[in-house]
């Protein structure tokens, strides 16, 4: 039985290939570039193969525009802090994570920008009809969290980009990559941030940033690239402009293993949706999920009505071994939007390794807890 329901924090277990490729790198060694012996060649080749795999996953032919970072947070900071703001205004979706809100607040404190929130429905889905009246050309940048890490709502990214026109869009794909279709070229996405350790089921410490137009950003980190070394200036070409310092090669090998493992989801989507329907009937537990199942990812939350979120999370672990995360999930804005601030919720996030039996067990435990009250 797999009772780990905190895959939105970080996925577990990993596909066995993650360990295989990490071990391969540990036994082989070699840095990225910066030398010309075989170890370096093999390591550099694997890094580039992984870059290509990521470009396929997010749907772009621009593989040089995929930049390795250390997680989504460093990718998001690269855009938010490297962007050349002319209007000083940023528009964000209502379910943003602190990986977006905190760098924005930092810039706001410095007097660089102000930020506004897109109109939304009760589940935080961007309200495309109410948004129509917004003058998007008043904004430098629009930032959208593709999939909420609180209630699993998937935003209609392509419609949002169509609506905002030429204003650049930064997509936070931390929770969607590896789970939900992403087509950055077809949708004309300008920037995309992702992390390896969640839906892609890779190791921690690796992320990536897609940048369509690299002239629009200044580098966030300056340092050695193994190229143009005679100059104190950062190179202008990609990916080097945004890849100073030795990348997490060990992690990139693990990510290569995770992606090539091509893990299939073991539970059925119908079982998951019927789990949500059953949970919605419980009197003492309030379900937080998408209003329309078409916009639902494999994450949802519960707000207990007669006990605290920490008590429910603790009881689930102590009585049944179910691992969840209670509180604000680094997303105070999302909880404000959903009316669950400041206590937060208990969050359940699935893995492809869960089975229908695991979901049934989870439902039975929650039903039992609901009845105790």
């Amino acid at each position, binding site marked *: 039985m797999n009772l780990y329901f905190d895959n939105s924090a970080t996925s577990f277990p990993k596909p066995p290939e993650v360990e295989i490729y990490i071990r391969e790198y540990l036994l082989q060694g070699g840095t*990225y*570039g*910066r*030398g*010309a012996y075989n170890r*370096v*060649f093999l390591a*550099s*080749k694997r*890094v*580039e193969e992984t*870059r290509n795999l990521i470009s396929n996953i997010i749907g772009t032919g621009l593989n*040089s525009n995929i930049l390795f970072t250390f997680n989504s947070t460093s990718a998001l900071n690269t855009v938010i802090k490297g962007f050349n703001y002319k209007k000083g205004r940023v528009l964000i979706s209502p379910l943003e994570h602190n990986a977006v809100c905190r760098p924005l607040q930092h810039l706001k404190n410095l007097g660089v920008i102000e930020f506004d929130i897109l109109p939304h429905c009760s589940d935080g889905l961007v309200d495309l009809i109410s948004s129509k009246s917004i003058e998007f050309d008043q904004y430098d940048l629009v930032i959208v969290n593709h999939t909420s890490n609180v209630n699993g709502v998937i935003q209609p990214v392509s419609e949002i980009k169509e609506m905002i026109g030429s204003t650049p869009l930064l997509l936070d794909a931390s929770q969607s990559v590896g789970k939900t279709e992403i087509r950055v070229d077809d949708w004309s996405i300008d920037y995309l941030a992702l992390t390896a350790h969640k839906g892609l089921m890779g190791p921690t410490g690796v992320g990536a940033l897609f940048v369509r137009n690299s002239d629009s950003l200044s580098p966030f980190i300056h340092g050695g*690239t*193994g*190229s*143009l*070394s*005679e100059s104190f200036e950062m*190179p202008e*070409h*990609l*990916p*080097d402009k945004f890849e100073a310092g030795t990348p997490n090669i060990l992690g990139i090998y693990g990510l290569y293993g995770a992606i090539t493992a091509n893990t299939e989801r073991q539970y059925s989507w119908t079982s998951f949706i019927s789990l949500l329907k059953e949970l919605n009937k419980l009197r003492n537990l309030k379900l937080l999920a998408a209003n329309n199942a078409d916009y639902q990812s494999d994450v949802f939350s519960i707000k207990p009505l007669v006990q605290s979120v920490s008590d429910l999370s603790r009881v689930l672990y102590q009585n049944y071994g179910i691992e969840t995360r209670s509180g604000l999930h680094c997303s105070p804005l999302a909880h404000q939007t959903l009316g669950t601030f400041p206590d937060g919720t208990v969050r359940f996030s699935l893995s492809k390794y869960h089975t229908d039996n695991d979901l049934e067990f989870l439902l039975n435990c929650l039903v039992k807890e609901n009845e105790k009250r």
Partner: protein
Amino acid sequence: MKSDREFSILLFQSIHQVMRAENIISKNGCNYQIIPVPSEYSSECGMCIEIDSLNTSSIISELQKYNIEPKVVKR
């Protein structure tokens, strides 16, 4: 006996370009070797690709199809 083969060296902007080019050249079936960038030419990056001079123009035009434009020096 001194070899009368002549070599060209392809120099790239970044390791990313070296790896893309290597992938293309290896599929082409031409002989090549990954070598350290000779310091007399550049400090550009750790690796460059040495090829038989005879193959230079065909390899260059193949790389151009992928928007890869290395600097070529004869040895």
